[in-house]
């Protein structure tokens, strides 16, 4: 059990900065999800904790110990790889036992541990099989078993569910959360899938182009995104972002204006360019709405309908409504009403202007 901290951690490959001055502390027992698009540096960050990549600058500590120069094997971390990295020539039992053989544990004790872990993960009947004889889900569980059998200080998981089909992914997601909760082992979980991040993490760290954008519990991240990147990345469909001009408690956008519940502190005098963000569920088609738009496309998803509109300057606006609400015709001119309690305002540099919501 241990806390993991990143202190100004930087990783460069030649001219490319993969991770840029990452600052983060992951308290003991937390499940932290590192979320971001591919190439954002999340896997590099994870591999630096494992010791598979060297740091260019900064420090990583595990349980108060700076591990920058510590051999991977002495860091006491276990990793679950995206490919599972099972040894094809070894049985499930041998695969799970593999990490224990280097730890001077006697055979009886090793077998006991393997059996325990196998039982926990429902692998007891598969112990004599080789990886090639297992289904994807079973392989995934063997990879998990191999990680937990060592009882390490930290679990590192690199997109462990991306090779599973959708149904299995939902099930395994819950299983991993339950397992982590029971074991209480600090876990860093890398994914590009926001649903995985939202459902699994105690907190989520969003990264983009090597830079940490925001660390927060899932709901906070959703409700109070720190910048336009986080705002757009989370949610499906993502937050509508419109260019506008802030003037007091209203933002002028193409085709109308959006009212705020209260003025943005420090920006209450004079007009300033901003980006205004509204999630699709906080929009509604309403004759009394304040923004004029044209319907371009209507997507029906069963329980809900997405109405994709275009403003007069060409910007896109997605409105999410219940399926039972009447569908507008394509090409219809409509008006969109905005819930003023749920409007996010971002400055010209994309960062959130504090106090803009609630």
């Amino acid at each position, binding site marked *: 059990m241990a*806390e993991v*901290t990143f*202190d100004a951690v930087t990783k460069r490959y030649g001219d490319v900065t993969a991770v840029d001055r990452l*600052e*983060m*502390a992951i308290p003991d027992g937390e499940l932290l999800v590192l979320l971001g698009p591919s190439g954002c540096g999340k896997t590099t960050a994870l591999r630096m904790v494992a010791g598979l990549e*060297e740091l260019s600058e900064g*420090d990583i*500590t595990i*349980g*108060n*110990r*700076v591990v*920058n*120069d*510590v*051999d991977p094997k*002495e860091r006491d971390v276990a990793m679950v790889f995206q490919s599972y990295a099972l040894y094809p020539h070894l049985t499930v039992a041998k695969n799970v036992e593999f990490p224990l053989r280097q730890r001077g544990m006697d055979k009886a004790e090793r077998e006991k541990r393997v059996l325990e872990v196998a039982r926990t993960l429902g692998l007891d009947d598969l112990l004599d099989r080789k990886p090639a004889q297992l289904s994807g889900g079973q392989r995934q569980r063997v990879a998990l078993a191999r990680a937990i059998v060592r009882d390490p200080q930290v679990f590192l998981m690199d997109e462990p569910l991306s090779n599973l089909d959708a149904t299995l992914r939902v099930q395994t997601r819950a299983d991993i959360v339950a397992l982590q909760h029971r074991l209480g082992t600090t876990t860093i979980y890398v994914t590009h899938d926001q649903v995985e991040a939202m459902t699994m993490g105690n907190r989520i760290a969003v990264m983009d182009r090597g830079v940490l954008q925001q660390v927060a519990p899932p709901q906070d991240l959703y409700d109070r995104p720190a910048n336009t990147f986080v705002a757009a990345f989370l949610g499906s469909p993502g937050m509508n972002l419109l260019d506008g001009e802030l003037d007091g408690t209203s933002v002028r956008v193409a085709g109308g204006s959006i009212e705020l519940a209260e003025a943005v502190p420090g920006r209450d005098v004079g007009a300033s360019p901003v980006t205004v963000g509204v999630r699709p569920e906080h929009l509604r088609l309403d004759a009394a709405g304040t923004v004029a738009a044209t319907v371009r496309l209507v997507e029906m998803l069963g329980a809900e309908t997405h109405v994709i509109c275009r403003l007069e300057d060409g910007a896109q606006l997605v409105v999410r409504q219940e399926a039972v609400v009447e569908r507008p015709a394509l090409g219809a001119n409509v008006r969109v009403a905005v819930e003023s309690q749920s409007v996010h305002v971002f400055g010209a540099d994309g960062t959130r202007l504090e106090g803009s919501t609630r």
Partner: protein
Amino acid sequence: MTVAVSAGAGREAPAAPRHRSLRSRKKREAALAYLFILPALLIFSVFVFYPFLRNFKLALYENPPYPNLPSHYVGLHQAATVLSSSAFLQSLLSTILFVLMVVPTGLFLGLALAVAAHRKLQGIAIYRVIFSSTVVSSVAVAALVFGTLMNPVVGLLPWLGINPTPSILQNPTWALPAVALMTVWQFLGLSFIIMSAGLQSVPDDLLEAARIDGASAWTRFWRITVPMLSPTLFFGVVVGTIYAFQSFGQIDILIGPSNAAGVHANVLIYYIYESLQIDNNAGQAAVLSIVLFVITLSLTLVQMRYLERRVTYAR
């Protein structure tokens, strides 16, 4: 975002002095790598590179006609003498003739057998084992077996009415073709294996598509199989040529040092052996070795270009 490094008396305190810097870890890895490479590199240095390079020096020195006398420096004179001698030209000609007799025949027969065995029939595995079997026959075995077949006293040849004078292996016209025949037989197994592997890499659906289009077996073979097989054929030519170049034992056993030159079977490699072991002429042997190397090198370079293409596919 505070970093809790300061609170010293932590749980992991004893581990602190075990720091090994990354640089030393990299150094250790490099040291291990050199240690792993060392045995092979040592062998190569002593038994491949050094003797190879020494040829260039030896070629510049002439050996006296009697052993144990010092050799003396003659520069390129020796090389010029050897390379313009009729014995060398005869040897080169014999080598080329030998390659031309062995390689096309061996490859064609190997391909014919591979095509015949490339179908699903009961018991085909047995035929495959038989066809590839000569690959394990050593040169001494093959030479002794064919020595019997070509022996003028043993009943077979007289019975067939083939009985030239002097006898086949003593005959300047027939000795080299006879050795080539034996070499083809010995090469057939390897040729069959190479061609079979090549045939297996020709996609069945191509042939099936052609079949549906109404192409005859003959057309399918020449228009699809052979073009698809061209890399294999090419590989076979290179391997076969090197194989033929290295034919030594059959000449030593079937013909022997006293006769080889006389019956025009004195191929390059045998000439090297004779120069060294019979004539004690290391200088001449070195010159000939360099010639052999240059020929092999050009062949290998051609092969490398092909290999390179293959390797880029793989990685």
